[in-house]
């Protein structure tokens, strides 16, 4: 039987819990409280970040010579075992990557994808796709650079310089393209939370619904495979689930 934990008690033992040193019985009681108290969850999250930061202060130390080679060799080559991997063509990708090991990998598109992932949130699939599109290139001398389209989102309210960015890549021949968007409506005074819809606008005036994702306090990032025709694509629109336009953007080819 786990005794009840109040918010006051949680604040007493929260530091130990966040550091992972709270004994089992107390931890169970605290966890039960956190399950029903958002304020204490937030408190513990902050404390956990402090604990993580403390670990980050530990000085580095060089491992034995050859460590990186030994580790890299043991990392499984069959990426189909990747748990929850959304990239369904991962195995094919791995084979291509291995075939390409002798040549210099030029990550042109990947660098752009990585940069926006770095700036706005992590999207493994998007960067992976971008890497694939470049590593599949057969010649290091001829660098095929499929145009990456990008656009800046503008808030429907017209406030602020930028509400985020949207990127569209048509993919290499035989491979699907993708869309990635990062949204920061909070920066323009619209801290909307809830489902939003991404629509692509075509030059003929029609729109295509690409998918939905969730914003939290106006922020979120999302990506999906999509058919991208640079010649027919003009812009994008982000709407709330009731159709209210939250932001729009026009594409430019990078």
């Amino acid at each position: 039987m786990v005794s009840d934990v109040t918010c006051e008690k949680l604040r007493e033992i929260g530091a130990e819990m966040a550091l992972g040193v709270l004994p089992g019985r107390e931890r169970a009681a605290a966890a039960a409280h956190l399950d029903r108290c958002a304020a204490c969850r937030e408190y513990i999250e902050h404390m956990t970040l402090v604990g993580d930061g403390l670990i980050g202060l530990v000085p580095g130390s060089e491992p034995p010579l050859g460590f990186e080679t030994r580790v890299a060799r043991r990392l499984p080559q069959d990426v189909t075992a990747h748990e929850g991997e959304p990239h369904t063509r991962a195995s094919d990708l791995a084979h291509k990557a291995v075939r390409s090991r002798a040549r210099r990998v030029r990550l042109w598109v990947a660098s752009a994808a990585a940069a926006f992932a770095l700036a706005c949130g992590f999207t493994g699939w998007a960067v992976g796709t971008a890497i694939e599109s470049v590593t599949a290139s057969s010649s290091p001398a001829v660098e095929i650079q499929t145009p990456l389209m990008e656009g800046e989102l503008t808030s429907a309210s017209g406030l602020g310089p930028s509400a985020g960015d949207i990127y569209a890549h048509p993919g290499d021949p035989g491979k699907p393209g993708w869309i990635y968007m990062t949204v920061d409506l909070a920066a323009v005074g619209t801290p909307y939370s809830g489902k939003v819809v991404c629509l692509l606008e075509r030059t003929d005036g029609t729109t295509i619904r690409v998918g939905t994702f969730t914003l939290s306090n106006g922020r979120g990032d999302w990506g999906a495979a999509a058919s991208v025709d640079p010649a027919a694509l003009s812009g994008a629109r982000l709407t709330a689930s009731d159709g209210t336009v939250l932001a729009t953007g026009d594409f430019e080819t990078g």
Partner: protein
Amino acid sequence: MGADRIYKCAELPVPVSRLPDEALLSGLATGDPELAVTFVRRFQRAVFGVAIAVTGDRQLAEDIAQQTFERAWRHAQIYDSRRGSVTTWLTTIAHNLAIDAVRARRTEPVAPEDLDALLDVVTETPEQWALADEASSQLRAAVAQLPREQGRALVMAGIYGMTAQQIADWEKIPLGTAKTRIRTAMGKLRNTLASPDRGDHGQ
């Protein structure tokens, strides 16, 4: 925001060794050996540092470091940059593995000379830390300002994974005092990181 940086990156090919941390992490999914070696090389010092600090055993630390990278490879898709850097993510994995390994091996805590040495080193501010991010610098300064007994309790709990009871036994203090030292120290660090001039964690 960030549009200039992205545009510049898009214009220039970037060698693997200069890829951002997040790109390298997701690149592990490709199975590309060059990416894997580059990834490990970039983070091995931080990962092994945590493992050796907690275990004090180079062979065990190497095993833990190896497990850390394998776990990162398997779970790369759950990494969330909003919760911290790739380095923080990896060192947290290494720390958890190291604590588990130490607890499985022995019950006694660390030697006191190791404890004080580690406390000294996490609070020193030599030139090599000058390039550390602002949050780390603030945290390091905050740890340095803690009363010694609070700093010791913090390192014992936060780095060596000792419970309040183990700290009380080691320091020969009442359990309540040990708990208070941990709580007070963590509270001070939290206030430091929550100061208004600090941005979100990891960004």
